[in-house]
């Protein structure tokens, strides 16, 4: 470990402590030692004056895809971890649908080790729920957890078989981990490449209706209620699924849910012109769906924001719409989009957005991060909530560029990210003009 | 087509009519067997001229002469360079032209390219015994070795001017004027 770090002169924003005010943070030996006003660091501390910017617990994304092993040309664990840090994320959960999939302890261990070496956000593997992601036989869940898996999922594929889902929701309780379900009834989605509706009809593209998601979410919620297990609904996209989650929570089922920034910001109209940057699964839906997702995130029916970061090489996206792969990257635009759609529209306060990105994921998954309480890990993000910036995908740390927000102006920019007290990301100075006054990053000496 | 007031009238209706009568006389003089004649007017104004000529030939020679119309738009040699595509008119040849004496009738002979296009088009319909050219006005400025066989009159034109022939069915009157060149879009 290196010297203690004193991050000072900022606005401390930590919803987990209901903290929002000027202050500083002292990190020693990878953990937060003190947090509040009038903190004084030891003489040998590295002092970082952030000149009024927000200091918050590092963001947590429970749903990303790093393409290692198998498709390293799109993203490696290292490039993904760095991309996450550039987006202000200090913890990410990676999905197991790599090639080969993460369905045995060795694979889990591989991802853990690579994540530790990567020098970006913390990378925790989600293990496969079924062997080979085939949806038939349960993986050795306990072994996967022992090797370092934090959850199980077949994401990319739904856990189609209700009986298997029941057993998973029962069995995972022994290890206190959630089942992350990609709810899609492929009998209804039927090869659909976008939302089924008038845009798909005009474009002549096959569509997947809302019912392909909501029907399965309803079923999954009843199974969660039956078993008492923790069901986490991935990437909710429809108003009907929101209703199902709401009902399940009201009945006391242990159900949590996530929504992506792109589903909060975009609708099926983004597909016009056959733009493959708007092709993902589940697809972008109607404005009515989008509004209900925003409302659900505000009232807590949807607990967290998760990006479903899905990198693809430009050659694969530069194809006829039918043939292009599903997915968009999201780690480096998440804060900007979330702030634009939620704070910009007045739906949520800045603190509440930080909650959905950091405290809430930690809370629902039982992680000891997502807070600035003394004793917690030194996972910190410093960001400028007012900075307007235009998305230029060529500056991404990610190995891929497939974002629907190219050229869009977003609000809110990450300036630096620390993991375990170590600075893992810093926005290059030339990229954004600092405020007048003292340069934000100062070297030695006490305040 | 509205004619500018600064246009100079070269032939009024009476004079134009007299010229057409004279052309009819020339035709009858040189063609011993008018039954073999076919007058083909080039769209647009050549068509009415051909019809008037045919009427005159019939009045003077006592034989009814068939007339046809030819639209040369698809045979132009400058297709790759012109701007907005011209509207294509119809081509109607009432009889089989092989073996006939075809006289192409046009209002103004200038570069000769229209006549060349008409020759190309006619050859796609058959093989006339003889093809001749009859034009009301020759304004000079040839770009191809083409000369009229029957000529109404010759007029010189300065740069920035052109000859405009008017016919009743399109312009409401029969005349020949010298007019400034219209500004093209």
């Amino acid at each position: 470990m290196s010297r203690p770090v004193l991050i000072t002169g900022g606005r401390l924003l930590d919803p987990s402590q209901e903290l929002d005010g000027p202050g500083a943070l002292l990190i020693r030996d990878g953990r937060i030692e003190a947090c509040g006003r009038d903190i004084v660091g030891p003489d040998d501390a590295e002092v970082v004056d952030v000149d009024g910017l927000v200091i918050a617990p590092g963001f947590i994304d429970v749903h990303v895809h790093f393409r290692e092993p198998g498709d390293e040309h799109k993203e490696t664990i290292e490039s993904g971890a760095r991309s996450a840090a550039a987006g202000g994320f200090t913890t990410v959960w990676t999905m197991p649908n790599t090639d080969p999939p993460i369905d045995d302890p060795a694979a889990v261990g591989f991802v853990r080790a690579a994540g530790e070496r990567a020098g970006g956000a913390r990378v925790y593997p989600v293990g496969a729920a079924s062997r080979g992601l085939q949806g038939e036989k349960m993986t050795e869940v306990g072994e996967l957890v022992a090797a370092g898996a934090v959850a199980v999922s077949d994401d990319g594929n739904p856990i189609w078989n209700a009986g298997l889902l029941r057993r998973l929701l029962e069995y995972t309780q022994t290890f206190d981990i959630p089942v992350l379900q990609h709810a899609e009834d492929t009998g209804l989605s039927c090869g659909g490449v976008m939302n089924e509706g008038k845009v798909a009809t005009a474009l002549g593209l096959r569509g997947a209706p809302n019912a392909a998601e909501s029907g399965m979410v309803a079923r999954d919620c009843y199974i969660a209620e039956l078993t008492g297990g923790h069901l986490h609904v991935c990437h909710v996209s429809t108003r009907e699924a929101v209703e199902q989650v709401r009902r399940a929570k009201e009945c006391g089922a242990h159900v949590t849910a996530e929504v992506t920034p792109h589903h909060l910001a975009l609708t099926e109209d983004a597909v016009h012109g056959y733009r493959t940057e708007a092709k993902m699964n589940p697809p972008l839906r109607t404005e009515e769906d989008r509004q209900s997702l925003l409302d659900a995130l505000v009232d807590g029916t949807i607990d967290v924001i998760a990006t479903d970061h899905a990198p693809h090489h430009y050659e694969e996206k530069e194809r006829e719409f039918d043939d292009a792969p599903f997915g968009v990257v999201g780690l480096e635009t998440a804060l900007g989009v979330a702030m634009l759609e939620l704070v910009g529209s007045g739906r949520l306060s800045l603190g509440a957005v930080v909650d959905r990105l950091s405290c809430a994921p930690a809370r629902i998954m039982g992680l000891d991060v997502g807070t600035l309480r003394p004793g917690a890990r030194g996972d910190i993000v410093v960001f400028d909530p007012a900075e307007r910036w235009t998305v230029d995908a060529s500056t991404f740390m990610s190995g891929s560029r497939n974002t629907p927000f190219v050229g869009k102006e977003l609000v809110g920019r990450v300036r630096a990210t620390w993991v375990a007290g170590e600075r893992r990301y810093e926005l290059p100075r030339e990229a954004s003009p600092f405020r007048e006054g003292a340069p934000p990053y100062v070297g030695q000496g006490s305040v | 087509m509205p004619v500018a007031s600064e246009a100079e009238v070269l032939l009024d209706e009476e004079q134009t009519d007299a010229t057409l009568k004279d052309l009819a006389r020339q035709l009858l003089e040189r063609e011993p067997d008018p039954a073999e004649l076919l007058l083909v007017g080039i769209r647009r104004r050549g068509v009415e001229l051909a019809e008037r000529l045919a009427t005159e030939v019939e009045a003077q020679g006592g034989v009814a002469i068939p007339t046809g119309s030819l639209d040369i738009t698809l045979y132009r040699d400058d297709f790759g360079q012109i701007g907005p595509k011209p509207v294509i008119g119809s081509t109607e040849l009432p009889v089989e032209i092989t073996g006939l004496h075809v006289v192409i009738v046009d209002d103004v002979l200038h570069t000769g390219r229209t006549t060349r296009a008409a020759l190309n088009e006619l050859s796609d319909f058959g093989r006339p015994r003889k093809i001749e050219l009859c034009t009301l006005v020759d304004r000079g400025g040839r770009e191809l070795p083409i000369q009229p066989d029957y000529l109404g009159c010759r007029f010189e034109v300065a740069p920035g001017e052109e000859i405009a022939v008017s016919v009743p069915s399109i312009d409401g009157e029969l005349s020949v004027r010298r007019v400034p060149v219209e500004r093209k879009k």
Partner: protein
Amino acid sequence: MTANTTNGGADGLGLGKDLTGLQQLTCEQIEGILDTAEPFKEISERRIKKVPVLRGKTIVNLFLEPSTRTRISFEFAEKRLSADTVNIASSGSSVEKGESLVDTARNLEAMRIDMVVIRHGSSGAAQFLADRIPSNVINAGDGQHEHPTQALLDLLTIRDRLGSIAGRRVCIVGDVRHSRVARSDIWGLMRCGAEVAVCGPKTLIPMGIEELGVTVLSRVEEAIEWAEVLYVLRLQLERMDAGFVPSLREYNRFFGVSRERLERAPGDIAVLHPGPMNRGVEIDSDVADGPWSLILPQVTNGVAVRMAVLYLLAGGSPERAESAKEARE
């Protein structure tokens, strides 16, 4: 989706470089194309069915989905305009060996092709190509999206028979869900002021079609009572295999256009079909060959319409005229 004017775009109708669909055209543009097709009908009656207007132009027929009738129709149109044509069909072309559409586009550009007529199995493929090459691109059918020249010849046929398109009642019967022809016809008819309805089993009517301005009729008897023109779509065997209809026999019984049904039409009714027909499925033989049918005029009009489209998109730009003039001086 807007008109691209990098090459050509000099036609008086403002069609731009490509024809990828009818959705973005105006009524004036559509009627203008139909008007231009008229003189081309006459050329097909001549002994020498050829005019030199596209002489020296190279046109590639890129048919990456099987088709005989459309390709032949385009080939006749191209040859009658004196263009040089090359056919690339899906079997044996580099695309089958795995060359992407992007690479195909680059190769075409490198060979300095003047015009490409493309048929492809993916919606959006025509626009995809048009965005990437300077040649004129004509959509001969992309996935389930549009087939503009088919709709144009349908509109011409309707106009010839009924005298106008505005205010006419046209019902499209059959597998609208999977039909690019239906979509193009809907756009074309609506732009020109016709009243449009669709009719077929609900499994074959796509979601949101009413929002485009189209009425949905549930029974073919209703359609026949209402419409002045019945546009019958082909029902493919694959639809039965995929479970959209239980059997072709059942489809014919409940949705087939038969003599008995047509004889109950309150007034005159004309029947069109894009071909090829499944006789005895969507349309009975005595209808296809009978007095209501305009199917053969459709085919004749097809060549003329395609000649008109090629003529309007090809060659000619004011800038080129200027520079050609300068070169001469």
